[in-house]
């Protein structure tokens, strides 16, 4: 078996651990005195983490030169979408129990919720266009569309920031990781351009 296949399977299993842990807590009745809030935070935390982990794949590929690693990107992105979907459904079903009027008001009036909803819609668009067929059909536009992950990370982080009333470590860790990973891309692009330029000048 190719190494990447093994890595992929291991990471797939590992990425299910949070969902399994949540199931276990539920089974144990260990969801704090406010289970809905706990599930909301738990799923939201993991959605943003997987989003940032997804952003790490391209830098890892560039640094390591191990190209097959790119095969992990879609899977991790879909895990981000998976946890974001659980997060959204928690809000939709458990928190507001289909109270459409109140949810619509929140989306329209409260930037905190607007940003969360916008992030989810972007991830939804990325998830449905993540198939081989979409990649083929959309061609160049697929690459452009999937740059939305940068916007979704920014809106997701802003939503996360608004969820807390003060700076907490969990937020800082995710923010720093995202800044480093996006910074790497900027640095890499600049470096590539600078390297090209002298050859043009000759």
């Amino acid at each position: 078996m190719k190494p990447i296949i093994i890595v992929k399977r291991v990471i797939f299993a590992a990425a299910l651990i949070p969902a399994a842990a949540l199931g276990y807590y539920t089974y144990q009745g260990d969801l704090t005195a406010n289970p809905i809030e706990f599930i909301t935070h738990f799923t939201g935390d993991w959605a943003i983490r997987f989003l940032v982990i997804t952003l790490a794949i391209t830098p890892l590929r560039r640094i390591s030169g191990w190209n097959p690693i790119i095969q992990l990107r879609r899977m991790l992105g879909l895990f981000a979408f998976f946890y974001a979907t659980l997060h959204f459904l928690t809000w939709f079903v458990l928190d507001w129990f289909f109270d459409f009027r109140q949810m619509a008001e929140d989306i329209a009036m409260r930037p905190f919720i607007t940003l969360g909803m916008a992030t989810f819609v972007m991830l939804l668009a990325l998830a449905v266009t993540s198939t081989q067929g979409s990649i083929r059909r959309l061609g160049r536009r697929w690459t452009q569309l999937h740059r939305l992950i940068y916007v979704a990370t920014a809106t997701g982080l802003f939503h996360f920031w608004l969820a807390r009333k003060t700076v907490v470590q969990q937020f800082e860790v995710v923010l720093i990781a995202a800044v480093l990973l996006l910074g790497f891309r900027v640095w890499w692009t600049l470096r590539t351009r600078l390297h090209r330029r002298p050859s043009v000048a000759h």
Partner: protein
Amino acid sequence: MLIRRAPDLRYSDITSKSLYLRRREFLREAAGAAIGAAAAVAMSPLAATVAAQERQGTGHGSKLANVKKSPLSTTGEKISTWDEITSYNNFYEFGPYKEDPKENAWRLKPRPWTITVEGYAEKKGTFGFDEFIHPYALEERIYRMRCVEAWSMVIPWVGIPLKDIIATCKPTSQAKYVEFVTAFNPAQMPGQTTRMLPWPYVEGLRMDEANNPLAILAVGLYEETLPNQDGAPIRLVVPWKYGFKGVKSIAKIRFVDYQPKNTWQVMTPNEYGFFANVNPNVDHPRWSQASERRIGEFFRRKTLPFNGYADQVASLYAGMDPKKLY
């Protein structure tokens, strides 16, 4: 079995012990589970010691004698359980998550404890806790507690009417407000080593609010001494206001002529004001205040003006713009 993981280098600014206690946070961060299992084996003796201390600090206190029932108690509502009240609350001195107070409050030593009375009052000075509360009869006050985060409980406090304590302190006519300050002791309150909030925590009441019969300083819960995580040994309870007004582990009471700058107002002035009266018609910028989730219930319930205590307190705010009373 609990799987514990050694602290990550990323978290160099908090003590490894406190991180160790954060079982749930660890599980949320369980990305490196395999490494964690190995570390847990190596560190398990330490974890066991810490867990023992943890239990000690969060269990039941001693029984309080001669607690009178009060006609001011809320009736006809299901009272939240001991576990709910002692395992889920905000007390940033012990961390930003609502499981943190229970896990970390064992560090607090509520005895010996002193309370300092300062400012425009005749009877000023520093008093030992027992000396301070000795003159008063303890009353049980069952009150709704509405957090600004839109959850609520019903809590059987044991306390002393604040107006009786104020009468003893004999404030002068210059005293317009009462300011309460939480103890500052970062060794016992690890949250105070961070910059989450400006410390120590400050809250305040206008003098007429403080003299309202509903306002109490609580020293107990379910006829037992107040658990550390709920603000031992003494805390403010003002049931018509959002929970953050209920300043915990009080070390100073000041009679002042200015409106105190309460901590959350300083921190986020567009979200939290001085009065913080429960008001379903004034939304928080991030969520509606029209409804709340009672802990233990699935469906939300409507939030009542002044948390259902309008008959007793609405007159305090006659003529004031209710929009300013958040």
